[in-house]
């Protein structure tokens, strides 16, 4: 298995000084291509910081982060934007769609920033929306859709440009159980199509769906196991 993500001895310290908070404390982690990983931890465990680090939304205080073998831990703002655009598809707890844009336009957005031409862009976006079962709702705005549908739009946006990593932060946190099941099903399907999926959650029920479960507490990885109960759908 090829290394996709490699974190080496990463620390993240907030408020350096007497009242410093060690959100990540010498964390090292390797995730290979095509893995399905859940990172589970209580709130305040440092899982969100880890997710920000993995998503190139934040830089470590010390240590290194290699993505595809490339050191991305100390890039400029614009270089990080580029890496996020190319390598990572985000799925957030709060969906994070832009309210003034339609579903299609939201999905097109990362493609615009990548510079994909109009025709190809709408084709890719429409494909992605069909994949999450929203082929009929492309012109709806976020406030005209249910939470589950909004999250599906967000997933379509994450996969539209086929990034190697899908990074999901509590993807079902704002959803009812029915929608949750559906979202998990879609994520699993994306995994089975060959994408690397990383889910960050506090919910053991969600974590149980993944193939590999990493538990984090107080900024440190306390366990890293292959899920014995993993079932392919």
């Amino acid at each position, binding site marked *: 298995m090829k290394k996709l993500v490699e974190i080496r001895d990463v620390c993240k310290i907030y408020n350096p000084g007497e009242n410093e908070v060690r959100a990540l404390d010498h964390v090292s982690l390797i995730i290979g291509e095509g893995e399905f990983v859940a990172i589970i931890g209580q709130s305040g465990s440092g899982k969100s910081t880890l997710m920000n680090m993995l998503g190139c*939304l934040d830089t470590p205080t010390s240590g290194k982060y290699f993505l595809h073998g490339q050191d991305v831990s100390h890039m400029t*703002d*614009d270089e990080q*934007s580029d890496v996020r655009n190319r390598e990572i598809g*985000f799925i957030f707890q709060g969906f*994070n769609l832009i309210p003034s844009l339609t579903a299609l336009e939201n999905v097109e957005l990362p493609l615009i*920033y990548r510079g994909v031409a109009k025709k190809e862009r709408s084709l890719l976006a429409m494909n992605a929306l069909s994949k999450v079962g929203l082929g009929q709702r492309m012109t709806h705005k976020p406030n005209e859709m249910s939470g589950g549908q909004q999250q599906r739009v967000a997933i379509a946006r994450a996969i539209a440009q086929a990034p190697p990593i899908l990074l999901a932060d509590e993807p079902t946190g704002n959803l009812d159980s029915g929608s949750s099941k559906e979202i998990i099903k879609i994520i699993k399907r994306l995994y089975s199509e060959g994408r690397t999926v990383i889910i960050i959650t506090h919910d053991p029920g969600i974590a149980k769906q993944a193939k590999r479960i990493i538990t984090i507490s107080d900024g440190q990885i306390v366990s890293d196991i292959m899920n014995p109960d993993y079932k392919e759908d």
Partner: protein
Amino acid sequence: MGKLGEYFKSAIKQIVGNGYRTLMTMLGIIVGIAAVIAVVALGNGMTQFVQSELNGIAGNYGEIYVDSSKTAEKITHDDIEYIESNVTDIYGVSPQMSAYGKVTGNRGTYEANVMGGSTAMEHMLSNGIIKGKYFNKQQVDSSQRVCVMLRDDAKKIFGTEEALGMEIELTIWGKTATYKVIGLRDSMNRLYSFIMEGQDYSAQIEVPYTALAADFDYYMEDFYSILLFADQGVLNTKVDEVKEILTNRHGLRGTKAITAYSMADFSGELDQILGYATTFLLLVSVISLVVGGIGVMNIMLVSVTERTREIGIRKSIGAKTGAIMVQFLSEAAILTLLGGIIGILVGIGMAYLICTAIGFKVIVTPTSVIGAALFSILIGLFFGLYPARKAAKMKPIDALRL
């Protein structure tokens, strides 16, 4: 630049989506640009109006005179003849005499401003002869008692415009003589009436200077000053030419005894004054534009704060600093351009209303319209810069955390 087009589109969407706020934000720009357009149009109209009316009153003439403190020489009939036959492109020169007196016709007696000149004096005023003829050289040479008056004066003095051939009595310095009306001038223009408003009215009577001199004991062997009549375009050069001729003929080189003043100088000065007035008003309206620009900046700052999350989302999915910058800048620029366009329309409307109410010609130049449009874009870019930078520099995690 397909990307740029996308940013524009999203900016327009944002502007349209926030209709009411957009309008309120644009208000400052609308008022500012409208004021600029209206002021420029008004300034142009005023300048044009004053110029044309001024030519109407003052006419196209220059005065050349002898400074009696510097020489005992005076301008002679020979000088006048020499000038008229040697200087090209002039209507002629004329001695000038004027006197205040009374004029009596069959409808009563009025104050009168009597002007004596030669046949070239016809060109002093731009309101031409509409009935009859001006007095000719023969009538001047033979001191005939003929006169030309304004149409309005004829109505007062005789009660009719059909005054040709009628007679008036001119009384000056206790002497009275009878003159026959041979020509009528069109009425004076509005600027003249405006200036003369509230003053005691006096009729304007033009007569041959020879007749005036003979009847009322004016000296006419030689003169301290003469008038030169020529078109505005050549007036200054012709006045200088005549000044040179007189200086040479009387051997007054280096004495500066012959001086001159032309109406072209006067209208030039007036132009300058009007120019200052317009510039001042323009400055005031530009200030209102700047105030409008600050309004745009404030709203953009509010918008950046409100849309922090959107900025975070955009950055997290790959928007670079430049992209966010362009998005907010184009939003500000489109906002002010839109305000500018509405302002131009409102301004033209205002210019029409005001100019027609006052009676000026409406002059809206393409330069002022294009200039105003460009300037409004510039305001957007300038005042949008700070909010756009603020948005672009946001860190995605900080923006998403909210």
